[in-house]
């Protein structure tokens, strides 16, 4: 368990790599002349940015699943809520540049002839408010949902399934055009963010760097949480919940706290994702998406924060490559990967690597073989 110090070796490596990415990408894309072998093509910048956002999302899932045994199959909902909060801000930024040139109403409202802006759109033209909502909207939902669920000790599979229900319900809700979130088309055709045009390469680079910083920040936050006594309690809850109760810990409070925190992280990821992909629509709420996130974590290595990041990057890079190279077969590959990992690498890429490392250390230190390190299943 690498929960001893805030900055263990692994963290340093992760942060170093992130720093490298934050520097290299702008250099390779901005400074290197197009056409030169080292030039990083423009279309890769938002793509990598997207991966980074997904990595942050995966990180948030790993925090609760890997360290507290809470498997949320609805984290896509928090991601999407953060995305919508940002999307609404970007919509309001369009101002009179929409096709109907309505100074206030977004196009889709004019188009379904809404008369005035719904109350919940107020304030989103002001960036600080939007930024606040990016945290609050997912946070509040997670808090309310978690408060109900954890108080009545809904655990394991049941929790996972009602989180699915939650995100599914939200998806249906956001699909409704009457909701005032643009229905199936969602929010799109963004022009600029805090004054900078989204189409400009520079803006993209900045967004990319911001995403990397957010990821690094998120990583450090998670490290800090799990290396504190709080983190030890989380692991205790994961491994022996009732024991923790009998020790006098209010397990539900811990779960609620970490669940809300994780939801906010997901929200931030969503907020950074939207301007880079240029659209947010209800299919982000699709239960399938949330499940996929869990799978990134599983692939990378549950309970090892770095693994979550790794998994997100690997799977999505693979997805990009397959959908381009072997369109007909990428689902086979994706499905196969999930089966393979759960069967043969229950602790994911990084976890397995760690096991090897641990084992060699063990053998080196004492002859007693390490016991199964895999955390007790819920």
């Amino acid at each position, binding site marked *: 368990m690498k929960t001893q110090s805030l900055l263990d070796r692994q963290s340093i490596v992760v942060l170093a790599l992130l720093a490298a990415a934050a520097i290299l990408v702008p250099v390779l894309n901005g400074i290197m002349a197009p056409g030169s072998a080292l030039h990083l*093509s423009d279309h890769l910048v938002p793509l990598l940015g997207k991966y980074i956002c997904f990595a942050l999302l995966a990180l948030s899932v790993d925090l609760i699943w890997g360290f507290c045994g809470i498997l949320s199959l609805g984290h896509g909902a928090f991601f999407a809520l953060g995305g919508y909060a940002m999307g609404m801000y970007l919509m309001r930024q369009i101002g009179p540049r929409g096709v109907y040139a309505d100074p206030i109403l977004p196009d889709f409202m004019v188009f379904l002839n809404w008369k005035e802006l719904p109350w919940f759109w107020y304030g989103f033209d002001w960036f600080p408010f939007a930024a606040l909502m990016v945290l609050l909207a997912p946070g509040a939902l997670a808090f309310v949902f978690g408060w109900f669920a954890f108080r009545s000790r809904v655990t394991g599979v049941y929790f996972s399934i009602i989180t699915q229900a939650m995100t599914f319900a939200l998806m249906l809700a956001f699909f409704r055009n009457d909701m005032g979130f643009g229905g199936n*088309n969602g929010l799109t055709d963004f022009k600029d963010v805090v004054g900078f045009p989204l189409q400009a390469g520079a803006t993209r680079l900045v967004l990319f760097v911001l995403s990397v910083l957010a990821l690094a920040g998120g990583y450090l936050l998670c490290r800090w949480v799990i290396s504190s006594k709080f983190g030890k309690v989380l692991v205790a809850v994961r491994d022996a919940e009732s024991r923790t109760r009998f020790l006098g810990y209010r397990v539900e409070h811990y779960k609620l706290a970490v669940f809300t925190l994780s939801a906010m992280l997901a929200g931030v990821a969503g907020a950074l994702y939207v301007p880079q992909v240029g659209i947010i629509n209800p299919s982000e709420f699709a239960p399938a998406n949330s499940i996929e996130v869990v799978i990134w974590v599983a692939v990378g290595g549950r309970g090892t924060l770095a693994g979550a990041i*790794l998994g997100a990057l690997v799977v999505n890079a693979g997805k990009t490559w397959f959908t381009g190279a072997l369109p007909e077969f990428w689902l086979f590959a994706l499905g196969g990967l999930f089966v393979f990992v759960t069967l043969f690498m229950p602790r994911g890429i990084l976890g397995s*690597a760690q096991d090897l*490392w641990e084992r060699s250390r063990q053998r080196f230190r004492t002859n007693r073989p390490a016991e199964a390190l895999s955390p007790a299943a819920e």
Partner: protein
Amino acid sequence: MSIFNISRRNLMALSAAALVSSALAGTATAQETIKVGVLHSLSGTMAISETTLKDVMLMLIEEQNKKGGLLGKKLEAVVVDPASDWPLFAEKARQLISQDKVAAVFGCWTSVSRKSVLPVFKELNSILFYPVQYEGEESERNVFYTGAAPNQQAIPAVDYLAEEEGVERWVLAGTDYVYPRTTNKILEAYLKSKGVKPENIMISYTPFGHSDWQTIVADIKKFGSAGKKTAVVSTINGDANVPFYKELANQGVKATDIPVVAFSVGEEELAGIDTKPLVGHLAAWNYFQSVDTPENREFIAKWKTFTKNDKRVTNDPMEAHVVGFNMWVKAVEKAGTTDPDKVIDAIVGVQVPNLTGGVSEMLPNHHITKPVLIGEIKEDGQFDTVWQTDGLVPGDAWSKHLEGSKDLIADWKTLKCGNYNTVTKKCGA
């Protein structure tokens, strides 16, 4: 240990993407071919409709190459799978344009996928041909809409029902997304302008993939048995149609009692249904496989040989791709280059024969002229054209029946503007 691990993987993340680029760039730099992007979902929920369009494009490109290619170069299709995932559409579009350097892209089906790729095409200044009937209210410099605008499908259909079937009561049933919403708004406005009373219009929306239609069909029956002739105008989206029609058949709603005219049900969709109970229900399109013209006969024959399956049907969006592709080819020949700006200028006014015996023209608003056909479903899952417009109908980018857009026009030839306001005489206001 873990150090190497991470770094390796992290590199891979980058290199995987880089790999794509280099792999494709390798061929892109080789200038002997003109690349054509095909952006249709081959997996996910939309694969059901879009896969066919991918095949059509492959066929058309093959045909063109048989004819000696374009500007003396061979055409090469670049197929990608956006997997019914809207952000992925944008990502793939970006890849096609900036990596593969495609000369034009043929793709998208749903409005949301189009909306998602729009900014990309504007930014990278490329060309998209969009082959599906849609809600209108849009005209972009970089997009050519070869599918029907509402005035090329919905309104003629309603007129037909009113005249030929004497319909007085209307059910506007649709899936809850932007195309049905808009179409129904337009129709509602239109019907009211024709003196239909509000109580004679029933509007109902259902979620995507709605599968339990018992209540709604029952409501329709109830609404229909008020003594006045009733018809259903259905903008129900793809997947939900099969259970809808099955329920109609089960509850014995016959076309002679309450005809249903659909705007999103074509030969492909019917291929999934037992059509015997549906005989007489209608669809409004700009093309039917059953249309008997030499062009169409030839096309169908080619299609069946290309797919090596004589059960394969053809449908309206396929024709739209045929027309769009031929227009693009003509425009490129006219401009003598595939440079988007030149092609965009050259293509307006280009005329190509469509498959229903007319000659479609690309209009300054980047929509095309189309005939409107009303067909009744036959037992064999084909349509029997029972009415069609005398000439071709020009597509309106902006509906005259929506207050938001009634003053807007699009003209990329002279005004160079997609949303010119005829009142304020300003572009984009």
